[in-house]
C-alpha cells in the first residue's frame, strides 16, 4: 500500500472540501477501496474517513418514498422493514451481493462507487484504459467471460459489479450530492454511471470534491418486484447476468414493466424499448421474445462472454414468466 495521510471528517462540508484536493480520496466502508489500495490500483495520498458523519439514517420522504443516507450499511438497508415491504427488489439485490461480513461494512454510496472487477483492471502489470488511460484494453483479446455485451467500446469492455445499483435503476432512484461550497445537486441514477466511450477512466457524473449524501427512492411503482441473479456459484459471486424487474400484470395481461440488468454493461442497464414491448402486452413467449430482442439489440460478445447473450434472453424469459404467473 502506498503511504497516505489519514484524516477523519467532522462535517460533510469538510469532507467535500478535503476530497477536492488532488490525491485525496473519501473512505466509507472501504471494502473495495482498501482492496484496490493493497494492489496499488488505487494510490491516494490522503484518505478522508467519513464513517463518523451522521449520514446513516433511512427517512420517509413527503412523496411517500425513502431517503437513504450515504452511510447506511448494505445489511441495514436490506433489513429495513420499509425496504422489505415496499422495495423488495432492492432488499433482494443487496442480499444477493457480497457476503454478510462485507454487507455489514459496505455503504450505500460506496456500493454505487465501487470499481469494476475486470481482471485486467486489477492486474497492474496489464494494459487497462480505465486504470491507465491510453494503455489499451487487455480484456478485448483476453479472458473476457465476465465482460460487457452492451454499451462497451473499443477502449473498455468492463462491467459494473453492483447488484444494489441495478435495483435502484429499476426504481428510478436519485443520488443526492454536495460539494465543498455546500452546493447540493440531485443526479438521476440513469445519469450517474457513465458508459466507457473513449474515457473509461471517468466512471460517474460526480465532479471533483462532490460527495454523495443520500439516495432517494421514489414511491414504489405498482407491480411484483423480483431480483434474479445468475452467477457461477449459488452465493458470494458477482453476477454474470442479473435482472431487476417490476412487473404489473393481471390475468396474463401486462400493464407496465420496468427492467434493469446487471453484469451486461459498465452501468446498470435499463431497457426502455423492452419495457414498451411488454406494456399492454400478453404474457406469452412471443411478447417475452420481443422484449428480449429489444434488450439485446446491439449486443456484442467478445468470445468468452458470448454465452451472456442467450443467458440474458433465458433469464429474462424466466423472470417474466414468474412475475406474470397470476
Amino acid at each position, binding site marked *: 500500500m*502506498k503511504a497516505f495521510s489519514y484524516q477523519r471528517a467532522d462535517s460533510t462540508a469538510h469532507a467535500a472540501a478535503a476530497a477536492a484536493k488532488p490525491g485525496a480520496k473519501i473512505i466509507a466502508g472501504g471494502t473495495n477501496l482498501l482492496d484496490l489500495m493493497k494492489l496499488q490500483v488505487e494510490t491516494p495520498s490522503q*484518505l478522508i474517513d467519513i464513517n463518523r458523519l451522521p449520514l446513516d439514517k433511512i427517512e420517509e420522504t413527503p412523496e411517500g418514498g425513502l431517503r437513504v443516507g450515504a452511510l447506511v450499511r448494505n445489511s441495514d438497508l436490506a433489513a429495513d*422493514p420499509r425496504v422489505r415491504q415496499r422495495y423488495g427488489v432492492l432488499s*433482494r439485490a443487496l442480499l444477493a451481493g457480497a457476503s454478510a461480513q462485507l454487507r455489514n461494512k459496505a455503504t450505500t454510496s460506496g456500493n454505487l462507487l465501487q470499481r469494476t472487477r475486470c481482471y485486467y483492471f486489477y492486474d497492474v502489470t496489464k494494459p487497462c484504459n480505465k486504470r491507465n488511460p491510453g494503455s489499451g484494453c487487455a480484456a478485448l483479446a483476453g479472458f473476457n467471460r465476465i465482460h460487457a455485451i452492451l454499451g462497451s467500446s473499443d477502449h473498455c469492455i468492463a462491467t459494473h459489479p453492483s447488484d444494489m445499483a441495478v435495483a435502484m435503476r429499476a426504481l428510478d432512484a436519485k443520488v443526492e450530492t454536495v460539494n465543498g461550497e455546500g452546493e447540493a445537486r440531485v443526479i438521476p441514477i440513469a445519469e450517474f454511471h457513465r458508459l466507457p466511450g473513449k474515457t473509461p477512466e471517468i466512471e460517474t457524473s460526480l465532479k471533483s470534491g462532490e460527495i454523495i449524501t443520500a439516495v432517494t427512492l421514489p414511491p414504489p411503482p405498482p407491480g411484483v418486484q423480483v431480483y434474479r441473479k445468475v452467477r457461477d456459484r449459488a452465493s458470494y459471486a458477482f453476477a454474470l447476468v442479473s435482472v431487476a424487474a417490476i412487473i404489473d400484470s393481471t390475468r396474463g395481461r401486462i400493464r407496465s414493466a420496468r427492467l434493469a440488468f446487471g453484469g451486461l454493461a459498465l452501468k446498470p442497464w435499463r431497457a426502455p424499448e423492452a419495457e414498451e414491448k411488454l406494456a399492454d402486452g400478453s404474457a406469452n413467449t412471443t411478447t417475452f421474445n420481443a422484449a428480449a430482442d429489444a434488450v439485446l439489440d446491439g449486443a456484442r460478445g467478445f468470445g468468452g462472454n458470448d454465452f451472456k447473450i442467450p443467458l440474458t434472453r433465458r433469464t429474462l424469459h424466466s423472470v417474466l414468466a414468474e412475475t406474470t404467473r397470476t
Partner: protein
Amino acid sequence: MAESELTTMEITRRTVIETGTTALLLTTLPRAALAAGPSDDSGPPPPPATVELQINGRSHVLTLDPRTTLLDALREHLALTGSKKGCDHGQCGACTVLIEGRRINSCLTLAVMHDGQSITTIEGLAEGDNLHPLQAAFVEHDGFQCGYCTSGQICSAAGMLAESQQGMPSYVTEDLTHPTAELTDAEIRERMSGNICRCAAYPNIVAAIKQAAGMPT
C-alpha cells in the same frame, strides 16, 4: 485500563504455550518484518496515528502506521493471532471479527478507523476455561480439519446468529416481509457463505452451528 503497545507485546510463557511457536518466532523478528502489510512501499512512511481499541473488553492504545489493517494490528501489534490472514482481500472470511457485535472482515478495514470501538476476536469468546457454545460445538462436531478458517467461521457464526435473532433476512429467505426467518440448513449455508473452508468441513460446520443455536442437528 489503557495499556501501551509495549506491555501488550510482552509474551508470557503461558501465551507461548497457548499460541504455539508462531508467537515465539515473532518476538525474534525485527520490527519491520512484522509490519508485512504496510511495508510494501519504498516511499517514506506516513506520520503515525494513535488509536484506542477496546479488544475483548480491554483497552489498547496503539501508535500505528495508518496503513495498518485491523487484522495486522491484532496479529502483529497485539499478538492476537487467532484471527487468520487467508486471502487478505475479503474473499475467504478467515479474518472475521466482531465490531460492536457485527461481523466484518478485519483485513479490509484500517485500525485507525475504529478508534474507541469495541472489537471481539476469537480470543474473547470463551469465558475463562469455558468454551463459547460455538467453540464447544465445533469441537464436538469436527467442524474443521486443518483449522485455519475455524476462528473466522466461529466469529462469523456468532455474528450470524445475532443477525438471525434480530430478524435480518438473507438471500434465501422466502418471504422478506416476514420479520424473522427460520434458520434452516439453506439459511445457515447462505448466511455463512463469506467463510470459505478449503477442507470442505461444511456439513459439520452447519451441524455445529445448529447445535449452538439450540436446534436439532
